[in-house]
């Protein structure tokens, strides 16, 4: 282990933990603001620390304080197995968190002929890891639902368990079609395969190469993560809150956060498998490294444009109505954030200018490309998370029998047919 290898391992692990955990407050905030957008209202935007609202993200921290200070309540009818009752949400949360760790955030860095994976767990069987670890998550739901000794909880747990069991089949079969196409179970190699072109002009993304399997994958992952329209396990119009009915305070928060981590993981898997992962379309890592000066000059032009649009938007929107006399520190917040953004842009520009015109180091170039890929990955991740949230607030919940019907009668046969077609095409191409 060289110093570079240790550094890469530590940094990618820290990045994985940050992306999995620090996105929870952002996702909770996004959920509420997007819900507000869909329902033609604003959503939480008033909470602030010294005038800093950050669009309302601060609300999530207030939520955390509330959940921590709430009374820890144990239902008195739970005679034995309190420890398992407490352990159940942790199982769900840990499974979702561990499953996220197999996602690559950037292409393999090559430093002194040593290839370093920018992946929290440097494994080359990521798909397998995801399938295995994410299947543990439902156990927490079943334990929690059963130990609550509550009819609603029991029904919710039974629903969640049978739904996950029936949707694991189409999920696995659609992933099998991808494995046949990409000829690998390594997430990193899958992304590398998708950096080529398809029919000469389309990016070879999974959604274009395998449209049917992609749709099945997305639908099955929606079901696996218990997101709408598959929230039958916690349908509040039928069974109160499902398996979470007896859970309070931080125990409830573990389930709640586990759901968001699972959603984050599902979007990461979706973008890695079918939306080109950390790469921008048509451009592979090799191309970026070979044409580094063109790439960084393009970046130098694009970054100020994006930042100026953001700053304009913020200056236009971050203010109170004209009829309100106190401005609540909003002008101050706008000023500070504008300065911070401009400062960050200047730093990025300075680094890029230094790299292009002064330093001729291939190491610095590849690190810059890796950082750029991490940024691309995060942007794609957030876009897909917003897609998840938009679906939740636009589509009504399926009835339970409709969920099972969809899984067994449509998705499963379609996935099987898709495997046959894929195998035929792959064998035919290789002949």
């Amino acid at each position: 282990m060289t110093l570079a290898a240790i550094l890469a391992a530590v940094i990618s692990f820290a990045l994985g933990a940050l992306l999995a955990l620090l996105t929870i407050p952002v996702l909770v905030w996004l959920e509420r603001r997007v819900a507000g957008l869909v329902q033609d209202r604003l959503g939480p935007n008033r909470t602030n620390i010294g005038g800093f609202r950050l669009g309302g993200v601060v609300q999530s921290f207030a939520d955390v304080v509330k959940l921590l200070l709430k009374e820890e309540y144990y239902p008195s009818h739970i005679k034995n197995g309190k420890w398992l009752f407490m352990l159940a949400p942790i199982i769900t949360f840990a499974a979702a968190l561990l499953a996220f760790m197999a996602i690559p955030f950037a292409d393999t860095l090559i430093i002194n002929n040593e290839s370093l994976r920018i992946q929290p767990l440097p494994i080359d069987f990521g798909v397998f890891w995801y399938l295995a670890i994410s299947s543990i998550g439902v156990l927490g739901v079943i334990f929690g639902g059963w130990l609550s000794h509550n009819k609603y909880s029991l029904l919710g747990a039974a629903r969640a368990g049978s739904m996950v069991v029936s949707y694991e089949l189409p999920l696995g079969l659609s992933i099998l079609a991808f494995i046949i196409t990409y000829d690998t179970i390594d997430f990193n190699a899958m992304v590398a395969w998708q950096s080529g072109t398809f029919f000469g002009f389309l990016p070879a993304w999974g959604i274009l190469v395998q449209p049917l399997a992609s749709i099945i994958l997305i639908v099955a992952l929606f079901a696996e993560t218990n997101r709408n329209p598959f929230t039958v396990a916690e349908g509040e119009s039928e069974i109160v809150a499902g398996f979470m009915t007896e859970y309070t305070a931080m125990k409830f928060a573990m389930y709640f956060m586990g759901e968001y981590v699972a959603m984050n993981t599902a979007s990461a898997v979706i973008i890695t498998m079918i939306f080109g992962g950390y790469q921008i379309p048509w451009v592979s890592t090799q191309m970026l490294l070979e044409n580094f000066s063109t790439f960084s000059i393009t970046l130098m032009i694009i970054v100020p444009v994006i930042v100026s649009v953001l700053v304009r938007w913020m200056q236009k929107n971050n203010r109170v109505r004209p009829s309100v006399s106190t401005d609540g520190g909003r002008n101050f917040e706008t000023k500070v954030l504008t300065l911070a953004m401009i400062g960050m842009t200047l730093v990025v520009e300075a680094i890029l200018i230094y790299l292009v015109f002064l330093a001729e180091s291939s190491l610095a170039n590849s690190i810059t490309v890796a950082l750029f890929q991490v940024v691309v990955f995060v942007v794609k991740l957030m876009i897909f998370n917003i897609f998840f949230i938009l679906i939740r607030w636009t589509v009504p919940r399926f009835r339970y029998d409709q969920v099972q019907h969809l899984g067994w009668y449509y998705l499963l046969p379609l996935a099987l047919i898709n495997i046959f077609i894929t195998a035929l095409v792959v064998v035919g191409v290789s002949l």
Partner: protein
Amino acid sequence: MLEISIFFILAAFMLGGSIAMITNKQTLFSAFGFLVAMIGLAGMFALLESRFLALAQIMVSVGAVVVLSMLTILTINAKEENLPKEPHKYKWIFFTSVLVLPFTFLLYKTLTLLPQSFSTMETITSKVVGKALFSEWVLPFEIISILLLSAMVGAIVIARKEIVKKEEHS
């Protein structure tokens, strides 16, 4: 040294889980013991550098077997007073474990006769397993697939029969 301590921790998990599974009266705690034992077994495989088997173990045993058995427990929802009385339970457990002890030695002998590649601490990836399955062991593999298929068809037939009967009654 680290490996040996991890081995003992995993072994403790497996033994404790198995004992908890047999001795517990509540079915759900038995399922939890089974889960712990299975995860310990997966850890054993991982300790032997057989990553594919470790993950397959988690996927099949935990993701499928434990979840399905827990679903069965949920649907049955057995109450403690409805469970059968087992006055000599621990005696029976002790007696049967003494009875199967010779078979354990037999198993140990067969395991030590296995090919050397299992003991050379080489990383066994999915590629190695796949190649071995589809070249050297292709006949047993196919026979097992046919067995599983017939079991699945049999289960569907058994499940279907009752539905047809019910429809006839009504």
